[in-house]
């Protein structure tokens, strides 16, 4: 049996609050293509509707500071060959 390779990805979004604190939200199974427009639309929605609050003093959400896709590849080595 040959080596088995599995890849998986996560999307990590960092939300920034007006007190300059930030919090991360991580999602599994991100789409292959995620545009800046989609992230910016999410950021606007969170801000307009008061969805998230900061951790230290429940500060208001300021913006999505960064969004990154993290890909990990795991290779299961075939120990029998």
């Amino acid at each position, binding site marked *: 049996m040959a080596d088995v390779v599995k890849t998986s990805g996560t*999307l990590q979004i960092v*939300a920034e609050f007006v007190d300059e604190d930030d*919090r991360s*939200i991580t*999602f*599994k*199974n*991100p*789409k292959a293509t*995620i545009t800046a427009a*989609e*992230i910016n*639309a*999410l950021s606007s*929605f*969170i801000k307009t*509707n*008061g*969805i*998230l*609050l*900061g*951790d230290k*003093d*429940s500060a208001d959400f300021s913006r999505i500071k960064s969004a990154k896709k993290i890909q990990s590849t795991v290779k299961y080595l075939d120990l029998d060959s």
Partner: protein
Amino acid sequence: MKMSKTSLILTTTDILGRKQQQSITDVNPNADTTALKTFAQMCNALTTDTYVSTDRIDKINCDLEAGTSKTTPTFSASKTTFSKALAGQDATSTDDGMIYNSRWTVQTTVTYNGDGVLYASVNNAIDTFTVTYSSANTYTVKAITSTSTTLPQTITIHTTETDTYKAATPITLTLTA
């Protein structure tokens, strides 16, 4: 005042049909439920999962609520407006048509799923208010403050305890200059 945040649980199915659950923390407990659902769907749209449902977690403190079977109601205020009479003019109540001298009006939309009575007090004194049932679990609370124009003033919205529901933690709105 530090509000206690709440969480969402986003339930989805992945491309292999497996049920997935994602917890999203740092959520504003006063956020509108429909907006929370839209937010969860927008987040899910960035993934290859299929959206199933969103739950908001209602935090129950086991120490404070020990030994009781009463439900804690969901109680929050949003869309609050403050208006005041302009200098040289009196504030007019749109409810009874009366003219009040130097008064402030606060109007807020309160979401409340309990069955107790809603009432408002200004600076801890029961003052003139109206509560109008708008739609399911939603009320418009309008409070006219006292004749004093000393600021800040605190408007507190309370509920009463019933056989089924505890009294909700009061909501405090502060009126400043």
